[in-house]
């Protein structure tokens, strides 16, 4: 529990806000950052959310809340437009070595369920490779596949399929609480 405070504290220090952390059970408004051409990345601090994770991972105003990487049809490499998303998560994992992530790869519904499971694995593996190349530790990252079993969009057709060709990043805090 004590360890959990560290990321919030660090974040608070970085943005030059009060060094007094919010109580962990705070549900009030997050502390907004003040950036002014300092070159400091804006981070939203504010204790923990309901899943026990620092708010900067889940608050929708934080770049770290962007957890999905989309892939083209029959493609298994991280597109350039998602390199920034992956880099943000790599940076967080480097700064918070006791946090872990689970990357879940997904495919669209066409074809064999088991073969799709293996294709989703390739997508998750690509994200994992990028994270570890950027400094995340092997032990921090597990890549798995949900294949076609958990579509974000249950419809059929290219619009639904493109939403489902995806890898999602889930976080777990050092105390075991989190999204997986």
């Amino acid at each position, binding site marked *: 529990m004590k360890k959990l405070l560290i990321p919030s504290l660090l974040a608070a220090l970085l943005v030059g806000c009060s060094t007094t952390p919010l109580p962990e059970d705070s549900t009030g408004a997050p502390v907004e950052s003040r950036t002014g051409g300092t070159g400091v990345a804006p981070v939203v601090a504010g204790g923990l959310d309901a899943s026990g994770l620092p708010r900067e991972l889940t608050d929708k105003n934080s770049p770290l809340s962007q957890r999905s990487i989309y892939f083209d049809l029959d493609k298994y490499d991280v597109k350039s437009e998602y390199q920034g998303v992956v880099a943000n998560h790599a940076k967080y994992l480097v700064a918070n070595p006791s946090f872990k992530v689970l990357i879940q790869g997904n495919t669209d519904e066409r074809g*064999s*369920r*088991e*073969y799709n499971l293996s294709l989703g*694995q390739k997508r998750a*593996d690509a994200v994992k490779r990028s994270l570890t190349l950027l400094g995340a530790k092997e032990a921090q990252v*597990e890549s798995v596949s949900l*294949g076609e*079993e958990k579509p974000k969009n249950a419809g059929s057709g290219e619009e639904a399929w493109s939403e489902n060709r995806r890898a999602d990043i889930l976080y777990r805090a050092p105390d075991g609480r989190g999204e997986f």
Partner: protein
Amino acid sequence: MSRNISRISRRVFLCFGLLTAGMAQAQLSIEITGAGANRIPVSIANFAGDAALSRIVVGTVRADLERSGLFKLIDPGSVGMDENSPVDHADWKGRGADALAAGSVVRGADGRLEARFRLYDTQKGVALGGMVFVTDTAQLRLAGHRIADFIYEKLTGERGVFSTRIAYVVKSRGQFMLQIADADGQGAATALTSTEPIISPVWSPDGSKLAYVSFEKKKPMVYVHSLSSGQRHIVANFKGSNSAPAWAPDGRKLAVVLSKDGNSQLYSVNVDGSGVQRLAQSAGIDTEPRYSADGAHIYFTSDRGGSPQIYRIESSGGAAQRVTFEGSYNVSPRPSADGKSLAFISRREGRFQLAVMDLSSRQVQVLTDSNKDESPSFAPNSRMILIATEVGGRGLLSAVSIDGRIKQRLSIAAGDVREPAWGPFLK
């Protein structure tokens, strides 16, 4: 005789376990969409004895034979006939019946039921044999399936599969249910309910267990589940994904697909989860392993050549041989129990269809005209293939004969049905 009784009592035990796991509300309903060309004309007389009980048995026998598409039922009239009633063969022949079955269902002093029957060849004017089942009310339909199996085997020369069971997954209102039903879709019972997906169920060779992949822990893991006790354990939970279980014919090992060392690759593991060994090595995806019935080979899907195709290796290892060549997407290989055929899913012009290969000639025949066939599963007599397909956006099961002539649809009104697995012959 004692062999049959022990068969029945074992079945009673199995079903008790399933019942305690919770009965399903949804029943599979069956629609026959095709029939064989030369159907054998057979008449099943109304059995003597307890009229209500006889009706259940006779109704089951008639429905089984009819559904198979191989028999034409001849109206026997309303007169009851037991297994010892005299048979006027010429009269039955005259009515167009090549074969006739008659029997009885009686309640014994101890409350147990005895179902008896005898089958006759009216052409030759001889009895082809008969059987007695000691059973109870709950198992009466099973006695009917056994009688239908006997008739099927005597008249076609192949073993019947009416008394076998099938497993499948129902998705309904956000829940996934692994269900077991009789081969005719009746008597469904739920073995496992989960809010997360369940895929790839496969029967152990003795029919007592299922292996499957469950996502209940946010990632795919392989489980083995004993149906009578409901006990289950994790067989493969390595870092990464664990999937595509296949039983070795001896029932002691499973082939599985693990991504622990990188790509999805084939391994074998003991049923208790120990003794993991690599089976094959490739730079691409290897998945969907299936042992040939003699255990000599493992068929699997691999994209090592650029597109997903079916390959096989000797189960002791060695170089892979490519098996499919037509088209750019051939997956989900399922060798038949008689070793003669390989069912698989082939993509043709963007449509996923059931195909079957004659393993001696390597000739391929596409058996369906659907868009989204998946997960084929052979009946243990190698004559029918059960698949998941989609009609009007809803998942249902379809059974197709290996010549493609007979088709049956099994659907559930309440939800999607998928991932069928046809169980083995009852021992």
